[in-house]
């Protein structure tokens, strides 16, 4: 136990130190706060605490004042002296540093009353903003390791598995396999030497997704405790947390947490004096997307090339070094302690008939409130995008949302009232995936989106099986041709055929899902493909090769007085006209770079 007794402060300033806020200089804010608190002689009354990701990344750097739950946002170092004087010295919360929703006239001081937070239900993120991830005592104070005690002293392994089955928890990594069933299979599997392993999959590679990173950064002990309970249930003695090396903060905080847990005897030999042994090692991934696939991940832990292998045998039967291995995603593990603590029935009371509990999503793209959200299963896309996400910036029209990462699908605006669960997303041609959610507005070209995501999966294809290696390449070639205006209608037929073949014949999940963005955009946005092919036009004006730039001579002369800015910026000398005259574009020389469009201050350059 701590050598020096922790003091009681009247105020804790909970400064967000997730990766988003850190890159917005949260640590400079922390330093400034500490300096100012000292200068004002408040160091015995006010304490600065760094927490994991608060979720409202769009508004970082963030700070919450406790008690009171007062939410401050977009802080700068120069705001700090005023903030400390007003709020901490004189007890007057500072309105101008609070969040003000665009449609409201007054700021909303209390965090729980802000729309972004209101509809969220925190289970996996239960300690969000309330603990310092580098202090095990903070986790313990919030009922941490209570479920472990229960699992070790009051429950048999079978009872733990039963509780997880009652909860209806399904894998949060994407496939949605029932967790309790997986545990049971590993428990029943026979190991040649009795050894079984446990793996936490933190190889989060989806562009725009940061659920796992945030959990590992904000609450590493929740994952460790979940794994301890899992180890007890299936009879494992060793565990591995596989985390990307590109997540330095997550790696650092997990390592600190493991050390602390070992020091307290919560990991290692004879845990809490109960005779139970278990320890965890961190394995850093080198950033290959395919390593998120479980068999490739296992190969990578064993020190081999990260390539998938055919299943069966499933890892539950033959995993790490040929022994039964239980692999679950970060978020799945983080849910386990709450289920054991509060009961499977409680967890199952949240969500829909087939998808229980909550899901963490990273909400990104063309959305006002970018960030990390945890919502009950069954919530509609509309609630996530408009109520929590605050809608689309600039009053633009919502067009589609891409769920499930690069191998998920695009769900069109017509389906905005779709309740989110595993089944409904699959039916719509997409998938839950690990929880990336990329919002797109009317300025997004769906053909270009399909091309972008496919270029990612094509790039990340490990090359082991032909359908994925060659198929994604052929599909990408066709998509590129279409975006350049060289596509034919036969291409569409071939594209669809290829997509189905790759989906069916690929070895692992990467190939099996890579065609999803293509298939869903073909299903919901076929007219955009047709426009590119037949009319050689990109309706969203994204595919530049299809754009035709012209200058409206009247606007150019009357508003801009022939300002000449476009001509001076044109690298290919395609713009004709002298200063003071109306300018025009020589289409034979134009390379469609769009610079003239970007630099014209008068809106005289038109694009079609």
């Amino acid at each position, binding site marked *: *136990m701590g050598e020096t*007794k*922790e*003091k*009681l*402060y*009247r*105020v*804790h300033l*909970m400064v967000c130190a997730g990766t988003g806020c850190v890159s917005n200089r949260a640590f400079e804010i922390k330093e400034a706060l500490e300096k100012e608190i000292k200068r004002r002689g408040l160091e*015995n*009354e006010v304490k600065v605490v760094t927490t994991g990701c608060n979720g409202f990344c769009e508004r970082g750097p963030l700070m919450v004042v*406790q*008690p*009171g*739950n007062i939410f401050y946002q977009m802080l700068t170092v120069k705001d700090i002296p005023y903030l400390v004087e007003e709020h901490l*010295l*004189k*007890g*007057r919360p500072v309105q101008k540093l609070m969040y003000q929703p665009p449609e409201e006239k007054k700021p909303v001081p209390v965090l*729980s009353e802000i729309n972004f937070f209101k509809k969220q239900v925190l289970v996996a993120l239960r300690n969000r903003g*309330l*603990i310092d991830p580098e202090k095990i*005592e*903070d986790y*313990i*104070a*919030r*009922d*941490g*390791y*209570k479920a472990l*005690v229960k699992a070790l*002293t009051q429950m048999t392994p079978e009872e733990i598995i039963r509780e997880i089955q009652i909860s209806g928890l399904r894998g949060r990594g994407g496939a949605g396999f029932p967790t309790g069933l997986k545990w049971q299979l590993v428990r029943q599997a026979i190991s040649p030497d009795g050894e079984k392993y446990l793996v936490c999959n933190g190889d989060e590679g989806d562009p725009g997704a940061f659920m796992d990173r945030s959990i590992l950064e904000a609450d590493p002990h929740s994952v460790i405790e979940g794994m301890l309970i899992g180890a007890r249930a299936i009879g494992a003695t060793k565990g591995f947390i596989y985390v990307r090396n590109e997540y330095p903060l997550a790696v650092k905080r997990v390592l600190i947490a493991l050390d602390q847990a070992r*020091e*307290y*005897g*919560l990991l290692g030999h*004879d845990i*809490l*004096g*109960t005779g139970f042994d278990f320890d965890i090692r961190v394995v850093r991934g080198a950033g290959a997307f395919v390593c998120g696939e479980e068999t490739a991940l296992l190969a990578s832990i064993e020190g081999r090339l990260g390539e998938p292998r055919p299943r069966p045998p499933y890892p539950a039967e033959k995993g790490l070094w040929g022994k039964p291995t239980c692999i679950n995603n970060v978020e799945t593990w983080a849910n386990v302690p709450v289920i054991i603590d509060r009961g499977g029935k409680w967890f199952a009371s949240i969500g829909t008939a087939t998808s229980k509990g909550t899901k963490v999503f990273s909400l990104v793209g063309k959305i006002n409130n970018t960030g990390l959200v945890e919502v009950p299963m069954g919530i509609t896309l509309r609630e996530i995008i408009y109520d929590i996400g605050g809608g689309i910036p600039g009053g633009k029209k919502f067009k589609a949302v891409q769920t499930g990462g690069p191998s998920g699908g695009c769900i069109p605006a017509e389906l905005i009232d779709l309740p989110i669960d595993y089944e409904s997303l699959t039916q719509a041609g997409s998938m839950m995936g690990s929880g990336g959610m990329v919002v797109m507005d009317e300025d997004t070209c769906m053909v270009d989106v399909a091309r972008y995501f496919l270029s990612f999966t094509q790039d990340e294809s490990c090359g082991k099986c032909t359908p994925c290696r060659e198929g994604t390449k052929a599909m990408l070639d066709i998509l590129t041709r279409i975006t350049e205006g060289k596509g034919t209608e036969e291409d569409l037929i071939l594209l669809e055929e290829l997509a189905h073949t790759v989906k069916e014949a690929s070895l692992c999940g990467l190939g099996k899902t890579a065609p999803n963005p293509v298939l869903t955009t073909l299903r919901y946005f076929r007219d955009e493909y047709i426009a590119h092919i037949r009319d050689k036009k990109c309706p969203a004006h994204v595919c530049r090769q299809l754009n035709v730039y012209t200058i409206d001579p009247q606007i150019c002369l009357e508003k801009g007085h022939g300002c000449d800015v476009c001509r001076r910026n044109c690298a290919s000398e395609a713009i004709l006209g002298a200063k003071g005259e109306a300018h025009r574009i020589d289409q034979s020389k134009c390379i469609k770079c769009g610079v003239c469009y970007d630099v014209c201050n008068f809106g005289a350059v038109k694009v079609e």
Partner: protein
Amino acid sequence: MPKLTIEELEKLREEARKTTFIRGQGEFRAKINVHMGTCGLAAGARNILNAFLREIEKRGLTDILLTTSGCAGLCSREPMATIEIAGQAPVKYVDLTEKKAQEIFEKHILGGEIVTAYALGIGSEKTDL
């Protein structure tokens, strides 16, 4: 660093709660609000605030909320504090000293008995006690 037994883990949890409870949005049985306007500060509100803080800490209590607010409007009677026991009307205390704060803490907050000698009034804007 000793390895914990289950009892020690529970003790550690209890200890850790005593300093982190202020972050929670849990139930508080009493709320102390020290008025910290310029007038209050000049009259020594910070000392009053700290006196209450030390009383809570001394006893390891985790269900008493200590907050601050601006000027209460009666500058001549500062330092002032408003005590609100859950479910009861708030009581305003005036002309506080650290000693009075301790007494109020013991009698009113812990004992449930209003210290009428130091009280300005019960409820808001009522001064005829």
